[in-house]
């Protein structure tokens, strides 16, 4: 089942990130293919996305349910297709970067990451934000994980198409949230 996790760091403290992320209205338009969303309750919302399947696009309605809500730390959710046979889940996690923490070991991009980056570029979704916290700058680390799994007889084909799309989608969302927060923080 296709899954992708995107991690980024930003020169913004965790409370500010939380303030932004906790209200989905703030970041909903950053979701790839976003059309609209409707809050049903504190936990439930209905999302309408335009899904690009290469040769055509389809409007997909998703029922999103928040399953864990830990303030300033973690949000987990599930999603269920209303008009399509698809399901999945995801996680937002954020944590503060400690000023006196030892430097993070450099993580070399694996083949999958390189492929995803190439694919993102291919579809014109190359991340534009390059800023990372300077050494000693108290910032935060944020990760966004998304898993989607198609159902029904066409699942093997749809999942094959979903797999490379999740990387750019998660990266796009994470980068845009970070860019918006850093922009607000600098002003």
């Amino acid at each position: 089942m296709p899954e992708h996790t995107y991690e980024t760091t930003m020169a913004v403290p965790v409370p500010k990130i939380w303030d932004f992320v906790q209200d989905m209205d703030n970041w909903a338009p950053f979701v790839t293919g976003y059309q609209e969303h409707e809050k049903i309750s504190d936990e439930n919302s209905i999302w309408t996305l335009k899904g690009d399947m290469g040769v055509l696009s389809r409007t997909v309605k998703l029922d999103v349910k928040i399953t864990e809500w830990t303030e300033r730390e973690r949000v987990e959710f599930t999603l269920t297709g209303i008009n399509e046979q698809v399901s999945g889940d995801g996680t937002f996690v954020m944590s503060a970067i400690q000023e006196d923490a030892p430097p993070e070991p450099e993580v070399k991009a694996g083949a999958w990451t390189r492929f995803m980056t190439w694919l993102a570029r291919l579809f014109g979704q190359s991340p534009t934000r390059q800023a990372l916290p300077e050494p000693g700058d108290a910032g935060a680390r944020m990760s966004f994980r998304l898993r989607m799994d198609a159902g029904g007889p066409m699942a093997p084909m749809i999942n094959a198409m979903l797999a490379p799309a999740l990387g750019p989608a998660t990266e796009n969302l994470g980068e845009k949230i970070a860019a918006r927060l850093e922009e607000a923080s600098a002003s």
Partner: protein
Amino acid sequence: MTEWDLSFDVVCVGSGLGGITAAIAAHDLGKSCLVLEKADKLGGVCAYSGGEVFVCNNHKMSAEGAPDDPTASKAYLDFLAGGYADPALAKILLETGPRVARYMDERAGVKWKIINKFPDYHYPHAPGTVGHGRYLEVELFNGADLGDWQHKTYKTPHMPPGITHDELFEWGGLACILQWNFGLMGQRIMADQRGFGPGMMGYFIKAAMVDRGIEARVSTPVTRIVTDGTRVVGVVAEHEGQSLRIQARNGVVMAIGGYDWHPDLPKYHEGLPEWHSMCQPSVAGDNMMLGGEIGAALAGVPSYNLGMFFGYRIPGEEHDGAPLWRASWEGGYPHAIWVNRKGNRFGDESFYRDYLPRCHEWDGVAQEHPNYPPYLIFDQNYRDKYAFATYMPGQPVPEEVLACADTPEELGAKLGIDGAQLARTLAHFNTFADGTTDPDFGRGTYPWAAMMVGDKSRPNPNMGPLNKGPYYGIALKPVGVGINSVGLKTDHFARVQHVRGRPIDGFYACGNSAAALDTGAGYQSGISNLRGMTWGYIAGRHAAGADDPYA
């Protein structure tokens, strides 16, 4: 004095099969060529098609040791034409088509193969038909071979991706979608392996743009044909907000699709009150506008039997920035029928050559189309086994798309048709639907239909009773595929004719830009691709000054 921004020998307007073939043919005679495409990708209508090319007497049949019979081939094409074809043009198509197919095989690397045991539409009921051999398609094409053009070429939303006809039929055809190997299809999609129309156009575009280095420009609509008073000498095209004057020293080849997306022309020419299209929105009748401005003559063939379908639109589905209209094949599956608003069947729903003219029928007393719109009706037997659009068995279909009711009477009320008569029609149909014969309309008697839309597990692959509620229904709308009944009138060298009856020097048309005077009243899938390829070849060679454009 005219000043040109660009100068070529031959300019092809449109990047479908006709335009690309014309460019290849002219290039191979030493001419410089430019292909201009209005859309942002190459491939045109052909890339949206099934990629079938119907070639009588083709070299692949000979290679199999079972050459076609030229007399039989002519008999079948004459049968299709129904007396509406120009015999001279029909003869050229019949005789030159196989030469062009061979040329593209041997000189352009197009890997043709015969679609196994795929019969002529009217086999075995019409003269000269065969059960195998005339349908060519290509082997899977590797999209990466297109280099920089890989992501600037069309793929189709209308055909299964990454497979061939042979695989589709081995897996049971369109009806038996649950038997398809979606895992393999997923792998092929990710590897950009292309079949059907995208595969065929892949080979042709590679031959032209990659192997021969022929220049092409996308997002460059032609807005005017330029003449010097006696002949066509170039075009004006728009690109990125700039107007380009492009010289065509030897000629301009008009090779775009038809007029599906034009707001008025389908209504004027196709004999139905509304029209939608499965094609890209760029297929908007530019051939008629551009030709008309320089006095080009139009010609037509009967509108009721060309390549078109009836279909529907699933809300939310789009392609190329436009609503996606789909052809409905479901009427030919078991447990499904078509009825008119009186609740009566009116044709063989598995064979669209039969029902299309009936949908066009006009009742001069009632002053209405008695069978328009047709309504697709099926039951829960159908929903348990077959897909509707891409809604798989067990997957709910929204009420806004498909009406659903517990009884035929209630379904009729929801659809606005005679429900009581619909119930009687189903009861009558069910008396023979588990058998092998449809005594009313001969459903399932065409092997082509059984192969394409049938389920071979049934006694009659195209029949099954509708006796399990709930019942489902939808009004179908006409959807074009860029093949229209009126086009530019062309002669034996593909030269466009002036309204005064003389050829317009330097101006050619092929494929769906040209009136189908070579095929007349009939249609056979793959014959439009044959027309595009053959007349594109003739146009390119004639423009290039070939002694024998047909060689």
